[in-house]
């Protein structure tokens, strides 16, 4: 199979995966307890108004009509109105989605930068104290749920040392307003970002570190490493350009899985640090039966994961000349 065919085939798979994911969402959210009008009844809605509302939402239609309508709406990016905020879901969710991406993106980038370097060195200095200590520290980080790491950091840096703000994204002003630069471009923002991002970095560091270490150990046993040393190339070149470069391949695949973990993890981290992102919003929405918001959040998180899996597969092909496209 040629490269082009592979990409096309992988793309078709992507579409099937998305379709399956859409359907899963549809099924899950139609099963939600309490119908979406129950919130309005509290507001003193008359039965007639309620009927009308249900008709507005299309809930009186047969299920397949609802399904088709649902797919159409998703594809046009229309998630309906929030039951709580009474605003279009898109308006509510997009800005929070950005906040989440900024937070978790930062966390992942740091997790990978540190993890890859740390893991490569652990492999290079195998059987050293550095390696043994590194493994213990890494496993400790990996054994801690996000909220636990967050709480420890909060206790130390906020409650005890008082170095960082405890929650939110900005000290003053609305958390959601302003342009991109106004929102993310200040020192104040960075101070707020530090602890939650660090939390994510610590938790997601373990996988790349351990994987990098073990692939390094394999790669270092390969004949070509010996040849590169025999070539007289400096240790740095052998370590980074050859050993680490080869070891990084499996990490590409895992990066996609890590994104999945991070998307889920954002729910927890944002709750701990009160970060105005999509994860926290989702918890709030589920607790308040605000289905449109919950569904949009879930939809976006899943889409990011599915897309990342796709990108990772393509990146792998690009990075490893040996891949056979099957």
């Amino acid at each position, binding site marked *: 199979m040629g490269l082009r065919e592979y990409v096309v085939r992988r793309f078709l798979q992507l579409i099937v995966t998305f379709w399956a994911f859409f359907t899963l969402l549809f099924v899950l959210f139609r099963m939600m307890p309490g119908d979406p009008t129950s919130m309005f009844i509290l507001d003193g809605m008359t039965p007639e108004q309620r009927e009308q509302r249900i008709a507005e939402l299309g809930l009186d239609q047969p299920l397949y009509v609802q399904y088709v309508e649902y797919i159409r709406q998703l594809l046009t990016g229309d998630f309906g109105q929030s039951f709580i905020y009474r605003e279009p879901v898109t308006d509510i969710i997009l800005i929070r989605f950005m906040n989440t991406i900024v937070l978790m993106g930062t966390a992942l980038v740091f997790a990978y930068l540190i993890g890859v370097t740390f893991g490569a060195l652990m492999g290079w200095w195998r059987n050293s104290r550095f390696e043994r200590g590194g493994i213990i520290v890494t496993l400790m980080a990996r054994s801690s749920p996000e909220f636990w790491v967050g709480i420890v950091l909060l206790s130390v840096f906020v409650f005890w040392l008082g170095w960082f703000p405890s929650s939110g994204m900005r000290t003053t002003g609305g958390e959601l307003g302003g342009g991109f630069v106004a929102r993310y471009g200040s020192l104040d923002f960075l101070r707020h970002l530090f602890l939650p991002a660090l939390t994510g970095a610590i938790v997601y560091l373990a996988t790349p570190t351990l994987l990098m270490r073990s692939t390094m150990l394999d790669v270092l046993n*390969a*004949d*070509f490493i*010996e*040849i*590169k*040393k*025999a*070539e*007289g*190339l*400096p240790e740095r*070149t052998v370590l980074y350009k*050859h050993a680490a*470069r*080869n070891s990084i*391949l499996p990490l590409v695949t895992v990066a996609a899985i890590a994104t999945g973990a991070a998307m889920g993890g954002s729910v927890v981290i944002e709750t701990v640090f009160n970060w105005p992102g999509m994860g926290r919003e989702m918890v709030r929405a589920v607790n308040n039966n605000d289905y449109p918001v919950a569904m949009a959040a879930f939809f976006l998180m899943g889409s990011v994961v599915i897309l990342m899996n796709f990108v990772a597969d393509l990146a792998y092909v690009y*990075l*490893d*000349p*040996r891949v056979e496209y099957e």
Partner: protein
Amino acid sequence: MTLLDITNLKTYYRAEDGWVRATDDVSLSIERGETVGLVGESGSGKTTLAKSIIRLLPDNAEIVDGSVAFDGTEITELTDSELRKQLRWSEISMIPQNAMNGFDPVYTVGQQIVQVIRYHEDGTSKAEARERARSLFDELGIEPDRVDDYPHQFSGGMAQRAMIALALALSPSLVLADEPTTALDVVIQDRILETIKKMQKELNSAMIMITHDMSVVSETCDRIAVVYGGRIIEIADAETIITNPRHPYTLGLRNAFPDINDDDQELISIPGTPPELVDPGEGCRFAPRCPFAEEACWEVTPEPESYGDGHEVECHRADEVELLQTEAGKKETWLEQEIGRPDDPTADRATAEVESDD
């Protein structure tokens, strides 16, 4: 002129139960342009000896004693960076057994050749280095455009040629070829060997050719050193080793390989297994398997004895050459149960299992 002079070299590996004496008191010198073969069973220490020369040893290895002088420079005393810059690849390069694994899979072969050229030669441009890689390919019988191919795109034989191109890219004075053709099929083997010889002649490089295969060394080497249990037990010019060896082990090795000129020859293998290299103790290391072992063989380690023209043998009975050669040609000799120390019940008796020696 002597290019490489190894004297009393001892390279040991640290293991759980003591030191593995993989190279134990070895002396060997090599002239410019000369090809020396190292033959011996698996585990006899051939690779260790070769790698000691460029100090390309694993972490648990140590050169405990002896000297390796290359062109007057004492290698054991160089710092790592001197070693890298002055000797590795520019003076001494190597060809591994499996070329496919010798290249980094994620770069093209050309990129790897260019990298090593440019690292060792300041001021060579990428284009020049690439041009050199292409012309090397041409000389070695590979389409020059294939420098842009990745290692996995080469066949086994082609990859081995590409590896030779890499090894010769800096015209080194010495090439360490560790079983360069074992992984290939017979027809290709011969062609690769011819190519290596041709290029070596052109560049006047010396070579150490490691192999299990007597026929390979006899065709390609000027001199042959037979390695057993971490020691060179016999060394002479190729002709002498093939036609007139004196050491019982060499005689046994010779029996185990088909002679192209003699169709009726019966293949006989040496019974028993290679010696334990951890604390081997005194005495001849071949004694447990040697049909000619005497009392003295078990007690005293034989010293190298010279028989003219650089023919040196480590055997107490090397003087009885006619007896040894006649008896060693007989199958019964190697089946005999007398092998093993007669008066020592604890000694491992070599089994007469007929197994090839690798």
